[in-house]
């Protein structure tokens, strides 16, 4: 059931860890959902819920880089934490290389731990300030049963791999490192369990441009060397375009558009994606786009707008948008070349005046 007909993935290198074959997606996310309760009052009762991640489905092919973009607070980090099992999901399934994760029959959590690792957003709190970085990196292998000596050797090898001289850096504490060096340590730590899929949550966002370029190059090199798959989360659209094969656009806990990177950037279908890209271009007056850029703050995810969640800010909003939520289509059954958008304007016969006419059978 999980096997799907897909176009050949970008890199389909042989990997002894492979179980499902090259066409089996590395990870399938099926209808995942997380509402955070907001508690208040003396009895600490749940008074409302933050719909941080609301019914998200997508897949990542082996060897590809899937970029995830969206405004601050749209649920990108929560999605990453759900995939990592750091936050318990309310609903939905994860299928890792053909095996259901976490359920009684599927891959045990420990297997997921090895296959999936994450580089965290905030490089300030992502490293234990009281541990020398060598120990921070060696911790994972030790937990998984390596002897202290083996784990240390592994940590040193990884430090070299991410471009840090082990002799100089092994005994240093995080506050003695620059932001770029810290992010290299974070990457080394994530690689220590020999993962297949790396989730990078704003991995380069806090770095200045030249260091950012170095770390991006490093990530590209590592991906080839270690046969990795990336989920790359960022709000920087330039970086996402540079590194991604496909892009997923999030708005208020939902996917609004997904497709190959060039199609998303050259022919965005969803007004939200268009606005995001317009914001990016508006730096240059020559290229300023006429479409209204994003106005105002995103609505509160506690009480998202009815119908299409973007309708409060959308220049093309019509009655149907308030009444009915536009679907994205069946993402899991689509091919990697498909370009899907959750907007009534792209769905034939949706009732929106700009929608294409229904195709006659």
């Amino acid at each position, binding site marked *: 059931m999980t096997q799907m007909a897909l176009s050949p993935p970008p890199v389909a290198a042989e990997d002894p860890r492979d179980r499902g074959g090259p066409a089996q997606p590395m990870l399938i996310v099926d209808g995942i959902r997380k509402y955070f309760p907001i508690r208040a009052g003396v009895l600490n009762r749940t008074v409302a819920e933050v719909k941080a991640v609301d019914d998200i489905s997508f897949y990542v092919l082996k060897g590809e880089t899937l970029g995830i973009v969206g405004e601050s607070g749209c649920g990108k980090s929560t999605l990453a934490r759900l995939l990592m099992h750091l936050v318990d999901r309310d609903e939905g399934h994860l299928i890792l290389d053909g095996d259901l994760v976490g359920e009684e029959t599927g891959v045990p959590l420990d297997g997921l731990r090895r296959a999936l690792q994450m580089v965290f957003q905030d490089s300030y709190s*992502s490293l234990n300030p009281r541990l020398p970085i060598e120990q921070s990196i060696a*911790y994972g292998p030790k937990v998984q049963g390596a002897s202290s000596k083996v784990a240390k050797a592994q940590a040193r090898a990884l430090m070299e791999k991410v471009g840090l001289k082990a*002799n100089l850096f092994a005994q240093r504490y995080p506050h003695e490192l620059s932001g770029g060096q810290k992010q290299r340590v974070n990457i080394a730590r994530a690689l220590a369990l020999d993962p297949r899929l790396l989730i990078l949550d704003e991995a380069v966002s806090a770095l200045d441009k030249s260091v950012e370029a170095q770390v991006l*190059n490093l990530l590209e090199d590592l991906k080839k060397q270690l046969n990795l798959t990336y989920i790359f989360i960022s709000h920087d659209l330039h970086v996402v375009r540079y590194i991604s094969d496909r892009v997923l656009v999030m708005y208020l806990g939902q996917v609004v558009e997904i497709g190959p990177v060039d199609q998303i950037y050259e022919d965005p279908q969803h007004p939200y994606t268009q606005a995001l890209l317009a914001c990016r271009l508006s730096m240059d007056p020559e290229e300023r786009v006429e479409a209204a850029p994003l106005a105002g703050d995103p609505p509160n995810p506690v009480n998202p707008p009815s119908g299409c969640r973007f309708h409060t800010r959308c220049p093309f909003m019509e009655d149907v948008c308030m009444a009915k939520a536009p679907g994205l289509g069946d993402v899991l059954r689509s091919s990697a070349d498909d370009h899907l958008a959750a907007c009534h304007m792209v769905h034939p016969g949706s009732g929106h005046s700009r929608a294409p006419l229904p195709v006659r059978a």
Partner: protein
Amino acid sequence: MTDALANSLAAAPVQSAPAARVRSYWGGVWQRLRYDYVTLFCIALIILIVLSAVFAPWLAPFDPYKSSMAHRLRPIGYRQFLLGTDEQGRDMLSRLLYGGRVSLLMGIVPVLLATLVGGMFGVVAGYYGRKVNMGIMRTMDIFFAFPSVLLAVAISGSLGGGITNQMLTLTVVLIPPICRVAETATSQVRNMDFVDAARATGASTTSILFTHVLINVMSPVLVYASTLVSISIILASGLSFLGLGVSPPTADWGLMLSTLRQSIYVQPLVSAIPGVAILVTSIAFNLVSDGLRQAMDVKA
């Protein structure tokens, strides 16, 4: 790749040093303490007080319990009585040295016990959050709601006197504040990404607590606990003063202060000596904990 270049550039100045000489955390703490002369002086003073208490039997010129009706309430420096004598004619210096044993014990042991117990509850409450936190912290709040002196009096009143009961009383009084500090520090650490990174490796909660949480919670808790030593000494003296602690004729600073207070108009200086000892010791402990706090405060 520009990477290698950037890395060798970044490394260049450090490389001239033979090996990576990097201080450990405690090495850094010591480097900062070294030039803090007030703290160093107070540490020396505390060591002196502790040593004098430990070696009291060898240092004391007289038997602290031997009274003499002929030499009651002698002034400071009277003949061989360097600090005078008390209302029963016992040598003040000897009693002060012996009394330090009880007072220091009362200052240090309850704080250590309370740090262990309160720290453990605080870390558990802070790490697990939610219901566990509610259960532990609300219980602590009940104890915390009473003024510490009142609580101490109430507990030791029901337990009865004696050294062990007094230490137990003080421990119970000190657990809630330490627990609160440990809980706050832990819940801060718990939300840091490195704890999630550790969870993502599949580590057990015990391993995470010992490797990642305790090490970060330790210094705020230790610094706070060191401020409690003086409070504990004063509370213990207070209990003895009220007759709820050790009983006469045991030499104890609080008790000495209590029995000498009737003689305050006869020999004011002699009567003040135990008070001065309590004051000096507690100020020394406070200054040391102040210095420790500054020295342990790494800018990460």
